[in-house]
């Protein structure tokens, strides 16, 4: 049962874009479908909805870690994130991986394009 919980999310749950801008910085935008339940909300039957939220997220550029984040329950539902990278060129691969408190995880890779 627990093993089934750890099955990877389909990468359809993530949308990403990495664009090299005129200022030489690459802007990476990430959108993840995730409920980000705090564990404090009640459902229609007055039952607490269990906490379900992303705890760890990391980004790499060509396999090298560029960003590591820890999140709590205060990130909005369907999390949105923008970050910027120096030293990236068109064709470089940006990869983002997350893991939630139930052990679910997903990864999405995208190539840097010219804005």
């Amino acid at each position, binding site marked *: 049962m627990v093993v089934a919980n750890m099955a990877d999310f389909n990468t359809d749950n993530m949308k990403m874009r990495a664009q090299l801008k005129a200022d030489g910085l690459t802007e990476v935008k990430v959108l993840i479908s995730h409920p980000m339940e705090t564990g*404090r909300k009640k459902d229609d039957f007055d039952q607490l909805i269990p906490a379900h939220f992303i705890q760890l997220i990391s980004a*790499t550029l060509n396999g090298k*870690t560029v*960003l590591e984040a820890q999140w709590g329950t*205060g990130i909005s539902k369907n999390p949105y994130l923008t970050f910027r990278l120096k*030293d990236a060129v068109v064709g470089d691969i940006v990869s983002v*991986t997350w893991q939630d408190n139930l052990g679910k*995880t997903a990864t999405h890779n995208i190539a840097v394009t010219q804005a």
Partner: protein
Amino acid sequence: MTENKMQRRGFLQCMAAAVALVLIKPINAFAAIWNSSAFEAVKLDEVTNHLNVEVEIVSQDIIIMAPDQAENGAIVQVEVTSNIANTESMAILVENNPTPLIAHFTFTNGAEPYIVTRIKMAETSDIKILVKAGDQYFSNTKNVIVLENGCG
């Protein structure tokens, strides 16, 4: 009798091993371990203690872009830039949330000290940004008036 006990012990040991296996989570991409004590702390100063912050220097070099007024506290977009040299990490805190620590970001290998994300705000509060640069911590705040609570 003794044999039964032995069998039971063997069974229990087997179960313990199975439970241990299930509890091991995939470590794969993540060097960091989720800082549960900081994220579960309910007061701002408890959070900063758990982040090992002793002294904070207020700095206008931390630029916080957020609305002065948020219609819906469930989605408040925050853009943070640190102009402090050698910024290593950045934490987002909301003082009046049930658990103030929202997120913690660490930048390496050419990532700019810049983040845009969307956060939940339970009520009108200061958003506080904590920046670590070398051995020092810097902070800045921005107040956001929340018209409709977003932490249900």
